[in-house]
């Protein structure tokens, strides 16, 4: 069936079985491979994307559920050779990415958290950042440098919105 939704700011229509995993629609049908598959059971967060601003595991998401909604993937945050988002810059500065396979999901979860901070005016603390990324597993870093990166981005003020916001 035809499913129409907003993808990274652009109106998009795909022809997909309604119950196809949205992760496969992104990676195979649309060729957007920044979103990774780590476990296929909604546990590791490697496939985190934003749907109407909320963090969602794309591996558990039936394609039909994005109908009429706004989807953001890591590809929305920067263009090749273009400037990076504040969080991406901060993770570079703190060495928050090691093997990099959890990074796309981590950046999306972190971006949602930073937007929430901006909306509420709250200050981030170690504990709130840890809670915000508790659904995203990382096997390399021990999380410290990812948390530092999110803290650094928060300290720099407004998180960069996706290029199309």
């Amino acid at each position, binding site marked *: 069936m035809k499913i129409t939704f907003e993808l990274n700011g652009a109106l998009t229509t795909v022809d997909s079985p309604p119950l196809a995993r949205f992760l496969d629609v992104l990676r195979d049908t649309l060729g957007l491979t920044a979103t*990774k598959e780590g476990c296929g059971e909604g*546990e590791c967060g490697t496939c985190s994307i934003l749907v109407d601003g909320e963090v969602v595991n794309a591996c558990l998401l039936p394609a039909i559920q994005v109908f009429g909604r706004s989807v953001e993937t890591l590809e929305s945050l920067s263009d090749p050779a273009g400037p990076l988002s504040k969080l991406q810059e901060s993770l570079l500065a703190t060495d928050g990415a090691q093997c990099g396979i959890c990074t796309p999901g981590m950046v999306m979860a972190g971006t949602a958290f930073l937007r929430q901070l901006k909306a509420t005016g709250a200050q981030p603390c170690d504990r709130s950042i840890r809670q915000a990324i508790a659904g995203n597993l990382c*096997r390399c*870093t021990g999380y410290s440098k990812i948390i530092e990166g999110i803290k650094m981005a928060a300290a720099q003020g407004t998180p960069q919105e996706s290029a199309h916001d």
Partner: protein
Amino acid sequence: MNPKIVGTRVPRDDGRQKVTGESLYVDDIDIPGMIYGTTVRSPVASAKVVSVDWDEGYDWTGIVRVTAKDIPGENSLPLLIDDQKILADRRILHMHEPIALLACSDPTRLREARGHVRLRYKSQPMVSQIEDSLEAEVKVFGADNVFKDIQISKGDPATILPKCHHRLEESYITGHQEHLYLEPQGMIGAWQDGVLTLTGSLQCPYYVHKAMKAVFGLKDDEVRVNQAVTGGGFGGKEEYPSLLAAHVALLARKSGTPVKMVYERAEDMCATTKRHPSEVTIHGGVDEDGHLLALDVDVVLDGGAYCTLSPVVLSRAVLHAISAYRCDHVAVRGRVVATNTPPNGAFRGFGAPQTIFAMERMMDLIAETVGISPAEVRCRNHLQNGDSTATGQILQQGVSAGAVLQKALDASDFHSKWEAYQGSHSNRNRRGIGIALFMHGCGFTGHGERDLKSRAALRLFLDPQGKPRAQVLASTTDIGQGMRTTFRQIAAETLGIAFEQVELAPANTAGVPNSGPTVASRTCMVVGGLVAEAGKGCLQELGFSGTTSEVELAAALASTGAVTCEREYEPPPGLVWDDKNYRGSAYPTYGFGCTICEVEVDAVTFETRILDVVTCQDVGRAIHPSIVEGQIEGGTVQALGFAGFEKVVMHDGTMRNHDVSNYVIPTAADIAPIRVLIHEEPYSGGPFGAKGIGEMPMDGGAPAYVAAVSQAAGVSFQQVPILAEDVFAELLKKKAVKRS
């Protein structure tokens, strides 16, 4: 010379691609005409194969089918002893052993077809764990189920032990640990004009190269192995990818198209290697002040159904059994045995975390017996310059055990906390603090490096702008540990050019020399050392005795043309190793570390909360401090997972909790900040003084955590992992809680 690049936090080589998602991992790579492969696996742990048949009622059109009959030569995977089958033919030795392979352009049909392969077999009795293996009449391997037996002997422990003031005995158990690299195993194979090209998630391109040459009878230039960006390895992608490579190559050979195979998570957890479970028994003898006088250590590891790298894992296990302590009378016996479980293999630490766990718990027992603190017993016994190890290696210099111990004690406020937490078990939330002191041999064991003859090269040339530019040629892989950045720093510093003026040749066996595997904490120290030597060689060829100005370097290159210098590993002088008797220099140098962990145990729910972790580790020289911190933080958290979270439930030869929901690794919310103190005791044989750091952080977390939980709960634990249910069970056993 004051280093300008070494010791700084330059931007990570692959950082931008990783934060933007532009890095291409195996599953992101598409080749025209490529189809997908899958593996049909054994549903039984021990059996004789009667036949492998295809369901005749199923439409097999468009599905490529491979069994052991399709293997052109010997059906064995070349590693240490070549016992592992590429596809089971006559005998099945473990659950999920590969039986047949399928490939198809449609992944949905592929999954469906898997259910139409008919395996007929006769079940055989099985050996499921260590105790059974040594006693069993069933033979999984050889005449006695023992893959390897090693003994170390120093002094006369048999005479000294009975005479000691205090004699202690305890047994320690560690379980399987799953790597859970977040990118599952994956490989693409393609044949073109008789050349086999493999692109995979892997640590050791030349392991795959060597194995494929043997399996398919190919020459050096008829196999090309590329490393795709790799989403974590931790040892799990050391030897295993060779099997996957053989599988995709067989499918690609039969289908005539490129074949990609990426494991599903459950398949990866069930079928691939894990950390060896261990049982270690220590008899210790000390004087009345707690000084170690004699130690007798018995180590048994569970190797699983095939040998893989188990003898080498055992070697590192026994060589770390006495860890960072001085003892004149030592006997260590190690055996690795066969069971009908999926083969165990390389995992960060490679046997050392298992024996170090046992020795550290023994040190705690000694402290308790003698009536001194766990810190004091370590202060009294740690190695110092001039001491000898269990193999008789005299450590002339660089023994930093005392320094790292002191720094960690100070930073954690260990003394006052340990005193305060003694005997305070009345509150609901009970606190404890534990300490572990450890060391880790850097690089390959014994003559390993000498025999390996690793090579790496540097090419120095002028770029189109007339600036000197260098390319590093090494088969070492970046698996997230930051090797690409570290090597660029070493080359740039050695040549006296900017970091930006150094690049790395792709890790492809067709274009780079064999630098040995990316394992054993050898990447920076050994191969990085070769890069530095090659850099010096380039400068010498241009007539310089050291670094010079960019202008002079450019002028020399303009007149001479590009220069390339390759260096092969040469063992440092005085490194003598007797592999038969396990005497001499087991490793060229050692890193030392101390980890202190503070926890709170809830006496109602039995949950443990980590409050603080301090770790001080001697890395020789931190080429890139952030990368080194990242290794220590990540390794420490992996060790805490091993200690308190990660329980592989192995039943009837299979991992029952083969999903990420039920095999739990630490999340950000489970872990306190890891406070890292880097100690630098330079090693003259490493580039700019660097030692290895990849594995050592895995050594100390488990004993420190278990000591802390033991103090908090008021019962002593001798095993890992310890989950809430284990704390409850132990307290119940000691009647410290009542079942309500």
